[in-house]
Protein backbone atom coordinates (compact mmCIF):
# COMPACT_ATOMS: atom_id res chain seq x y z
CA UNK A 1 0.00 0.00 0.00
CA UNK A 2 2.97 2.34 -0.48
CA UNK A 3 2.54 5.41 -2.66
CA UNK A 4 4.87 6.61 -5.40
CA UNK A 5 4.27 4.85 -8.71
CA UNK A 6 1.19 3.10 -7.35
CA UNK A 7 -1.06 5.49 -9.31
CA UNK A 8 0.52 4.61 -12.64
CA UNK A 9 0.77 0.84 -12.50
CA UNK A 10 -1.40 -1.94 -11.21
CA UNK A 11 -0.11 -5.25 -9.98
CA UNK A 12 -1.78 -8.34 -11.39
CA UNK A 13 -1.13 -12.05 -11.71
CA UNK A 14 -1.01 -13.47 -15.20
CA UNK A 15 -1.02 -17.24 -15.71
CA UNK A 16 -0.39 -19.38 -18.75
CA UNK A 17 -1.25 -23.04 -19.05
CA UNK A 18 -2.15 -25.85 -21.43
CA UNK A 19 1.22 -25.38 -23.16
CA UNK A 20 1.04 -21.56 -23.54
CA UNK A 21 3.61 -21.26 -20.73
CA UNK A 22 6.20 -22.43 -23.26
CA UNK A 23 5.81 -19.12 -25.08
CA UNK A 24 6.47 -17.24 -21.84
CA UNK A 25 9.85 -18.52 -20.58
CA UNK A 26 8.25 -21.79 -19.44
CA UNK A 27 6.86 -19.94 -16.46
CA UNK A 28 3.23 -20.47 -15.55
CA UNK A 29 2.71 -17.64 -13.11
CA UNK A 30 3.88 -14.07 -13.67
CA UNK A 31 3.40 -11.23 -11.21
CA UNK A 32 3.28 -8.16 -13.42
CA UNK A 33 2.95 -4.43 -12.93
CA UNK A 34 1.15 -3.03 -15.94
CA UNK A 35 0.27 0.57 -16.74
CA UNK A 36 -3.08 1.78 -15.39
CA UNK A 37 -3.85 3.46 -18.71
CA UNK A 38 -3.41 2.21 -22.24
CA UNK A 39 -1.76 4.02 -25.20
CA UNK A 40 -4.75 6.32 -25.66
CA UNK A 41 -5.25 7.11 -21.99
CA UNK A 42 -8.15 4.73 -21.42
CA UNK A 43 -8.23 2.38 -18.44
CA UNK A 44 -6.21 -0.72 -19.27
CA UNK A 45 -8.39 -3.57 -20.44
CA UNK A 46 -7.67 -7.16 -21.45
CA UNK A 47 -7.16 -6.15 -25.09
CA UNK A 48 -4.36 -3.85 -23.91
CA UNK A 49 -2.93 -6.60 -21.68
CA UNK A 50 -2.70 -8.95 -24.66
CA UNK A 51 -0.75 -6.31 -26.65
CA UNK A 52 1.42 -5.62 -23.60
CA UNK A 53 2.21 -9.32 -23.15
CA UNK A 54 3.20 -9.66 -26.81
CA UNK A 55 5.44 -6.62 -26.76
CA UNK A 56 6.94 -6.56 -23.28
CA UNK A 57 6.78 -10.08 -21.85
CA UNK A 58 6.83 -12.72 -24.61
CA UNK A 59 10.32 -13.82 -25.59
CA UNK A 60 9.26 -16.46 -28.07
CA UNK A 61 8.78 -15.20 -31.61
CA UNK A 62 5.95 -17.57 -32.48
CA UNK A 63 3.43 -14.82 -31.79
CA UNK A 64 0.81 -16.52 -33.99
CA UNK A 65 0.46 -19.22 -31.35
CA UNK A 66 -0.89 -16.56 -28.97
CA UNK A 67 -2.62 -13.83 -31.05
CA UNK A 68 -4.58 -13.73 -34.29
CA UNK A 69 -6.35 -10.70 -35.71
CA UNK A 70 -5.44 -8.54 -32.71
CA UNK A 71 -6.97 -10.84 -30.12
CA UNK A 72 -6.09 -14.16 -28.55
CA UNK A 73 -6.22 -16.96 -31.11
CA UNK A 74 -9.08 -19.47 -31.21
CA UNK A 75 -8.56 -22.32 -28.76
CA UNK A 76 -7.35 -20.06 -25.96
CA UNK A 77 -9.71 -19.48 -23.06
CA UNK A 78 -9.19 -16.30 -21.10
CA UNK A 79 -10.15 -16.61 -17.45
CA UNK A 80 -10.68 -13.53 -15.33
CA UNK A 81 -10.54 -14.41 -11.64
CA UNK A 82 -11.49 -18.02 -12.40
CA UNK A 83 -14.38 -17.14 -14.72
CA UNK A 84 -14.60 -17.37 -18.52
CA UNK A 85 -13.97 -13.84 -19.86
CA UNK A 86 -17.22 -14.14 -21.86
CA UNK A 87 -18.91 -13.57 -18.47
CA UNK A 88 -16.88 -10.42 -17.83
CA UNK A 89 -17.01 -8.45 -21.09
CA UNK A 90 -14.24 -10.27 -22.99
CA UNK A 91 -11.36 -8.02 -24.04
CA UNK A 92 -13.16 -4.88 -22.91
CA UNK A 93 -12.95 -5.95 -19.25
CA UNK A 94 -11.11 -3.22 -17.35
CA UNK A 95 -8.32 -4.69 -15.27
CA UNK A 96 -8.36 -4.13 -11.51
CA UNK A 97 -5.37 -4.35 -9.17
CA UNK A 98 -4.96 -7.89 -7.85
CA UNK A 99 -6.81 -9.49 -10.75
CA UNK A 100 -5.81 -12.95 -11.88
CA UNK A 101 -5.87 -13.25 -15.67
CA UNK A 102 -5.30 -16.79 -16.90
CA UNK A 103 -4.63 -17.69 -20.54
CA UNK A 104 -5.36 -21.33 -21.12
CA UNK A 105 -4.83 -23.33 -24.27
CA UNK A 106 -7.40 -26.07 -24.72
CA UNK A 107 -6.03 -29.55 -24.69
CA UNK A 108 -7.06 -32.18 -27.19
CA UNK A 109 -5.16 -35.27 -26.10
CA UNK A 110 -6.96 -38.28 -24.74
Amino acid at each position, binding site marked *: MSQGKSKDVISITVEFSGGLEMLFSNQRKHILSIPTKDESGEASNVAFLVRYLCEDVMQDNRRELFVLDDTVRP*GILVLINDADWQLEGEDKYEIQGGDNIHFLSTLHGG
Partner: protein
Amino acid sequence: RYAKAWPLEKHEYKRYGRQLIMPEVGLQGQLRLKTSSVLVVGVGGLGCPAAAYLAGAGVGKIGLVDGDTVEESNLHRQILHSTGRVGMTKVESATVSLTQLNPTGEYLAYSSRLTPDTAIEIFQSYDLILDCTDNPASRYLISDTCVLLGKPLVSASALRTEGQLMVLNSPPRPPGDILGGPCYRCIFPKPPPAESVVSCGDGGILGPVVGVMGVLQALEAIKIITRGIQHPDLICHIDIDKPRFQTNNEMPPNPPEPPSLLLFSAYSNPPFRSIRLRSRKSKCASCSAQAIVTREALTSGSLDYVQFCGIVSPVEAL
Protein backbone atom coordinates in the same frame (compact mmCIF):
# COMPACT_ATOMS: atom_id res chain seq x y z
CA ARG B 1 -41.93 -60.43 -13.84
CA TYR B 2 -43.41 -56.92 -13.61
CA ALA B 3 -44.92 -57.66 -10.24
CA LYS B 4 -41.59 -58.68 -8.76
CA ALA B 5 -41.17 -57.46 -5.20
CA TRP B 6 -37.45 -56.78 -5.67
CA PRO B 7 -36.61 -54.62 -8.66
CA LEU B 8 -33.00 -55.83 -8.81
CA GLU B 9 -31.70 -59.38 -8.99
CA LYS B 10 -30.29 -60.78 -5.76
CA HIS B 11 -26.72 -60.74 -7.06
CA GLU B 12 -27.13 -57.11 -8.06
CA TYR B 13 -27.90 -56.11 -4.48
CA LYS B 14 -24.64 -57.80 -3.54
CA ARG B 15 -22.58 -56.34 -6.36
CA TYR B 16 -23.82 -52.77 -6.01
CA GLY B 17 -24.49 -52.78 -2.27
CA ARG B 18 -21.76 -50.26 -1.43
CA GLN B 19 -23.24 -47.61 -3.70
CA LEU B 20 -26.89 -48.58 -3.28
CA ILE B 21 -26.83 -47.65 0.40
CA MET B 22 -25.79 -44.10 -0.39
CA PRO B 23 -28.55 -41.49 -0.51
CA GLU B 24 -27.02 -40.04 -3.69
CA VAL B 25 -27.67 -43.34 -5.50
CA GLY B 26 -30.27 -45.44 -3.69
CA LEU B 27 -32.43 -48.06 -5.34
CA GLN B 28 -33.83 -45.56 -7.82
CA GLY B 29 -30.36 -44.43 -8.85
CA GLN B 30 -29.22 -48.02 -9.30
CA LEU B 31 -32.25 -48.76 -11.49
CA ARG B 32 -31.49 -45.68 -13.54
CA LEU B 33 -27.92 -46.89 -14.02
CA LYS B 34 -29.16 -50.34 -15.01
CA THR B 35 -31.54 -49.00 -17.64
CA SER B 36 -29.13 -46.37 -18.93
CA SER B 37 -26.81 -46.47 -21.91
CA VAL B 38 -23.56 -44.56 -22.27
CA LEU B 39 -21.44 -44.14 -25.39
CA VAL B 40 -17.69 -43.80 -24.86
CA VAL B 41 -16.08 -42.25 -27.95
CA GLY B 42 -12.35 -43.02 -27.88
CA VAL B 43 -11.02 -46.00 -25.94
CA GLY B 44 -7.60 -44.59 -25.05
CA GLY B 45 -6.21 -42.95 -21.93
CA LEU B 46 -9.53 -41.34 -21.00
CA GLY B 47 -11.93 -43.96 -22.33
CA CYS B 48 -10.30 -46.94 -20.59
CA PRO B 49 -10.72 -45.83 -16.96
CA ALA B 50 -14.03 -44.12 -17.74
CA ALA B 51 -15.52 -47.32 -19.21
CA ALA B 52 -14.15 -49.44 -16.35
CA TYR B 53 -15.88 -47.38 -13.65
CA LEU B 54 -19.11 -47.09 -15.67
CA ALA B 55 -19.21 -50.86 -16.10
CA GLY B 56 -18.37 -51.33 -12.42
CA ALA B 57 -21.23 -49.06 -11.37
CA GLY B 58 -23.75 -51.09 -13.34
CA VAL B 59 -24.50 -48.99 -16.43
CA GLY B 60 -26.69 -51.34 -18.43
CA LYS B 61 -25.29 -50.71 -21.90
CA ILE B 62 -21.93 -49.23 -22.82
CA GLY B 63 -20.98 -48.48 -26.43
CA LEU B 64 -17.31 -48.12 -27.39
CA VAL B 65 -16.18 -46.26 -30.52
CA ASP B 66 -12.58 -46.35 -31.74
CA GLY B 67 -10.89 -47.18 -35.03
CA ASP B 68 -7.48 -47.98 -33.56
CA THR B 69 -5.74 -51.16 -32.54
CA VAL B 70 -3.83 -51.62 -29.28
CA GLU B 71 -0.14 -50.65 -29.41
CA GLU B 72 2.55 -51.22 -26.82
CA SER B 73 2.97 -47.45 -26.40
CA ASN B 74 -0.67 -47.23 -25.24
CA LEU B 75 -0.25 -49.53 -22.26
CA HIS B 76 1.32 -47.11 -19.80
CA ARG B 77 -2.03 -45.34 -19.59
CA GLN B 78 -4.73 -47.40 -21.34
CA ILE B 79 -5.33 -49.82 -18.53
CA LEU B 80 -8.20 -51.82 -20.04
CA HIS B 81 -5.87 -53.23 -22.67
CA SER B 82 -3.06 -55.73 -22.13
CA THR B 83 0.24 -56.76 -23.60
CA GLY B 84 -1.27 -59.98 -24.94
CA ARG B 85 -3.88 -58.00 -26.85
CA VAL B 86 -1.49 -55.72 -28.75
CA GLY B 87 -2.78 -55.63 -32.33
CA MET B 88 -6.40 -56.32 -31.40
CA THR B 89 -8.88 -53.49 -32.00
CA LYS B 90 -9.19 -51.29 -28.95
CA VAL B 91 -12.95 -51.75 -28.78
CA GLU B 92 -12.61 -55.53 -28.81
CA SER B 93 -9.84 -55.49 -26.20
CA ALA B 94 -11.87 -53.20 -23.94
CA THR B 95 -14.93 -55.40 -24.30
CA VAL B 96 -12.94 -58.39 -23.04
CA SER B 97 -11.86 -56.49 -19.91
CA LEU B 98 -15.26 -54.97 -19.20
CA THR B 99 -16.98 -58.34 -19.52
CA GLN B 100 -14.53 -59.83 -17.03
CA LEU B 101 -15.16 -56.99 -14.59
CA ASN B 102 -18.95 -57.00 -14.88
CA PRO B 103 -20.61 -59.62 -17.08
CA THR B 104 -24.08 -58.26 -16.31
CA GLY B 105 -23.58 -55.26 -18.62
CA GLU B 106 -24.01 -55.16 -22.40
CA TYR B 107 -20.98 -53.88 -24.32
CA LEU B 108 -21.21 -52.81 -27.95
CA ALA B 109 -18.08 -52.32 -30.05
CA TYR B 110 -17.94 -49.87 -32.98
CA SER B 111 -14.56 -50.48 -34.53
CA SER B 112 -14.32 -47.56 -36.88
CA ARG B 113 -13.59 -43.92 -36.47
CA LEU B 114 -16.61 -41.70 -35.82
CA THR B 115 -17.65 -39.74 -38.92
CA PRO B 116 -20.51 -37.34 -39.68
CA ASP B 117 -22.13 -40.21 -41.62
CA THR B 118 -22.28 -42.52 -38.64
CA ALA B 119 -22.50 -40.20 -35.64
CA ILE B 120 -26.27 -39.62 -35.53
CA GLU B 121 -27.15 -43.26 -36.05
CA ILE B 122 -24.77 -44.45 -33.34
CA PHE B 123 -25.55 -41.71 -30.79
CA GLN B 124 -29.31 -42.22 -31.16
CA SER B 125 -29.44 -45.30 -29.00
CA TYR B 126 -27.52 -43.85 -26.03
CA ASP B 127 -28.61 -41.60 -23.17
CA LEU B 128 -25.30 -39.87 -22.53
CA ILE B 129 -22.03 -39.44 -24.42
CA LEU B 130 -18.41 -39.32 -23.17
CA ASP B 131 -15.93 -37.50 -25.40
CA CYS B 132 -12.65 -39.32 -24.80
CA THR B 133 -11.15 -38.44 -28.19
CA ASP B 134 -7.94 -36.64 -29.00
CA ASN B 135 -8.55 -34.14 -31.79
CA PRO B 136 -10.62 -31.00 -32.40
CA ALA B 137 -12.51 -32.36 -35.42
CA SER B 138 -13.99 -35.17 -33.33
CA ARG B 139 -14.78 -32.81 -30.45
CA TYR B 140 -16.89 -30.51 -32.67
CA LEU B 141 -18.62 -33.45 -34.36
CA ILE B 142 -19.49 -35.07 -31.03
CA SER B 143 -20.80 -31.84 -29.51
CA ASP B 144 -22.90 -31.01 -32.57
CA THR B 145 -24.41 -34.48 -32.61
CA CYS B 146 -25.19 -34.31 -28.89
CA VAL B 147 -27.01 -30.98 -29.36
CA LEU B 148 -28.99 -32.27 -32.34
CA LEU B 149 -30.10 -35.40 -30.47
CA GLY B 150 -30.46 -33.82 -27.02
CA LYS B 151 -27.82 -35.89 -25.20
CA PRO B 152 -25.72 -34.61 -22.31
CA LEU B 153 -21.98 -34.73 -23.02
CA VAL B 154 -19.07 -35.23 -20.62
CA SER B 155 -15.96 -33.98 -22.37
CA ALA B 156 -12.39 -34.34 -21.16
CA SER B 157 -8.89 -33.99 -22.52
CA ALA B 158 -5.34 -34.32 -21.27
CA LEU B 159 -1.82 -33.58 -22.41
CA ARG B 160 1.56 -33.84 -20.70
CA THR B 161 0.84 -32.98 -17.05
CA GLU B 162 -2.54 -31.29 -17.48
CA GLY B 163 -6.18 -32.18 -17.91
CA GLN B 164 -9.50 -30.43 -18.54
CA LEU B 165 -13.10 -31.54 -18.00
CA MET B 166 -16.48 -30.02 -18.87
CA VAL B 167 -20.08 -31.22 -18.71
CA LEU B 168 -21.80 -29.85 -21.83
CA ASN B 169 -25.37 -29.66 -23.10
CA SER B 170 -26.59 -30.50 -19.62
CA PRO B 171 -29.48 -30.19 -19.18
CA PRO B 172 -29.87 -31.22 -22.84
CA ARG B 173 -32.48 -28.81 -24.15
CA PRO B 174 -33.33 -28.24 -27.85
CA PRO B 175 -31.32 -25.64 -29.82
CA GLY B 176 -32.59 -22.16 -28.99
CA ASP B 177 -33.67 -23.08 -25.44
CA ILE B 178 -31.53 -20.93 -23.17
CA LEU B 179 -32.15 -23.28 -20.23
CA GLY B 180 -29.94 -25.90 -21.84
CA GLY B 181 -26.29 -26.17 -20.88
CA PRO B 182 -23.67 -24.66 -23.20
CA CYS B 183 -22.18 -26.78 -25.97
CA TYR B 184 -18.55 -27.11 -27.10
CA ARG B 185 -19.10 -24.37 -29.73
CA CYS B 186 -20.45 -21.96 -27.08
CA ILE B 187 -17.10 -22.22 -25.30
CA PHE B 188 -14.92 -22.54 -28.41
CA PRO B 189 -16.76 -20.90 -31.33
CA LYS B 190 -13.75 -21.29 -33.64
CA PRO B 191 -11.34 -24.23 -33.84
CA PRO B 192 -7.71 -23.68 -32.90
CA PRO B 193 -5.16 -23.26 -35.69
CA ALA B 194 -4.02 -26.75 -36.69
CA GLU B 195 -0.38 -25.98 -35.90
CA SER B 196 -1.27 -25.22 -32.26
CA VAL B 197 -2.80 -28.67 -31.67
CA VAL B 198 -0.45 -31.10 -29.94
CA SER B 199 -1.31 -34.77 -29.58
CA CYS B 200 -0.29 -37.06 -26.71
CA GLY B 201 1.95 -38.82 -29.19
CA ASP B 202 3.90 -35.64 -29.86
CA GLY B 203 3.63 -33.87 -26.53
CA GLY B 204 3.71 -36.83 -24.20
CA ILE B 205 1.31 -37.74 -21.40
CA LEU B 206 1.67 -38.94 -17.86
CA GLY B 207 -0.59 -41.99 -17.36
CA PRO B 208 -2.29 -41.02 -14.09
CA VAL B 209 -2.98 -37.50 -15.42
CA VAL B 210 -5.21 -38.76 -18.20
CA GLY B 211 -6.39 -41.52 -15.86
CA VAL B 212 -7.73 -39.06 -13.30
CA MET B 213 -9.63 -37.19 -15.99
CA GLY B 214 -11.18 -40.41 -17.31
CA VAL B 215 -12.30 -41.54 -13.86
CA LEU B 216 -13.82 -38.10 -13.27
CA GLN B 217 -15.75 -38.45 -16.56
CA ALA B 218 -17.28 -41.68 -15.24
CA LEU B 219 -18.18 -39.90 -12.01
CA GLU B 220 -19.92 -37.03 -13.81
CA ALA B 221 -21.83 -39.53 -15.94
CA ILE B 222 -22.96 -41.45 -12.86
CA LYS B 223 -24.05 -38.22 -11.17
CA ILE B 224 -26.11 -37.20 -14.20
CA ILE B 225 -27.72 -40.63 -14.63
CA THR B 226 -28.59 -41.20 -10.97
CA ARG B 227 -30.05 -37.68 -10.75
CA GLY B 228 -32.29 -38.56 -13.71
CA ILE B 229 -31.70 -37.32 -17.26
CA GLN B 230 -34.34 -34.88 -18.40
CA HIS B 231 -34.97 -35.62 -22.02
CA PRO B 232 -35.39 -32.59 -24.26
CA ASP B 233 -38.84 -33.49 -25.57
CA LEU B 234 -40.81 -33.15 -22.40
CA ILE B 235 -43.18 -35.99 -23.22
CA CYS B 236 -40.67 -38.73 -22.55
CA HIS B 237 -38.87 -37.45 -19.49
CA ILE B 238 -37.84 -40.05 -16.97
CA ASP B 239 -39.88 -39.79 -13.77
CA ILE B 240 -38.37 -36.45 -12.78
CA ASP B 241 -41.15 -35.79 -10.30
CA LYS B 242 -40.73 -38.95 -8.33
CA PRO B 243 -38.92 -38.74 -5.04
CA ARG B 244 -35.32 -39.81 -5.57
CA PHE B 245 -34.39 -41.37 -2.27
CA GLN B 246 -35.47 -44.70 -0.96
CA THR B 247 -33.29 -44.90 2.11
CA ASN B 248 -33.70 -43.48 5.57
CA ASN B 249 -30.98 -40.95 4.91
CA GLU B 250 -33.29 -38.39 3.34
CA MET B 251 -31.43 -35.67 1.47
CA PRO B 252 -32.49 -32.89 -0.86
CA PRO B 253 -31.93 -33.91 -4.49
CA ASN B 254 -28.71 -32.60 -5.99
CA PRO B 255 -29.54 -29.98 -8.60
CA PRO B 256 -27.50 -29.89 -11.82
CA GLU B 257 -24.37 -27.86 -11.34
CA PRO B 258 -23.72 -24.54 -13.11
CA PRO B 259 -21.48 -24.85 -16.18
CA SER B 260 -17.86 -25.16 -15.18
CA LEU B 261 -14.45 -26.27 -16.39
CA LEU B 262 -12.26 -28.35 -14.11
CA LEU B 263 -8.53 -27.82 -14.65
CA PHE B 264 -5.91 -30.24 -13.43
CA SER B 265 -2.18 -29.59 -13.43
CA ALA B 266 -0.08 -32.31 -11.82
CA TYR B 267 2.85 -30.07 -10.83
CA SER B 268 0.90 -26.96 -9.81
CA ASN B 269 -0.23 -25.97 -6.38
CA PRO B 270 -3.19 -26.22 -6.02
CA PRO B 271 -3.42 -29.01 -8.62
CA PHE B 272 -7.16 -28.57 -9.31
CA ARG B 273 -9.07 -25.41 -10.15
CA SER B 274 -12.70 -24.85 -11.09
CA ILE B 275 -13.60 -22.19 -13.65
CA ARG B 276 -17.07 -20.72 -14.11
CA LEU B 277 -18.23 -21.02 -17.71
CA ARG B 278 -20.81 -19.07 -19.70
CA SER B 279 -24.29 -20.34 -20.39
CA ARG B 280 -25.51 -20.94 -23.96
CA LYS B 281 -24.29 -18.35 -26.45
CA SER B 282 -27.12 -16.50 -28.15
CA LYS B 283 -25.46 -16.82 -31.56
CA CYS B 284 -24.01 -20.30 -31.19
CA ALA B 285 -23.76 -22.09 -34.54
CA SER B 286 -24.97 -25.28 -32.88
CA CYS B 287 -27.28 -24.73 -29.90
CA SER B 288 -28.87 -21.31 -30.48
CA ALA B 289 -32.09 -20.35 -32.25
CA GLN B 290 -29.86 -19.29 -35.15
CA ALA B 291 -28.06 -22.63 -35.35
CA ILE B 292 -26.64 -23.49 -38.76
CA VAL B 293 -25.51 -26.94 -37.65
CA THR B 294 -28.67 -28.82 -38.57
CA ARG B 295 -29.25 -32.52 -38.94
CA GLU B 296 -29.40 -32.10 -42.72
CA ALA B 297 -26.15 -30.13 -42.81
CA LEU B 298 -24.46 -32.79 -40.75
CA THR B 299 -25.69 -35.84 -42.64
CA SER B 300 -25.34 -34.27 -46.09
CA GLY B 301 -21.64 -33.84 -45.46
CA SER B 302 -21.78 -30.07 -45.91
CA LEU B 303 -20.00 -29.74 -42.56
CA ASP B 304 -16.49 -30.89 -43.21
CA TYR B 305 -15.03 -31.14 -39.72
CA VAL B 306 -11.57 -32.02 -40.87
CA GLN B 307 -11.53 -29.03 -43.21
CA PHE B 308 -13.11 -26.80 -40.51
CA CYS B 309 -10.33 -27.68 -38.10
CA GLY B 310 -7.71 -27.29 -40.83
CA ILE B 311 -5.97 -30.47 -39.85
CA VAL B 312 -2.43 -30.44 -41.21
CA SER B 313 -2.00 -34.16 -41.59
CA PRO B 314 -5.01 -36.44 -41.93
CA VAL B 315 -6.57 -37.38 -38.63
CA GLU B 316 -5.25 -40.80 -37.92
CA ALA B 317 -6.61 -41.69 -34.58
CA LEU B 318 -9.95 -40.97 -33.08
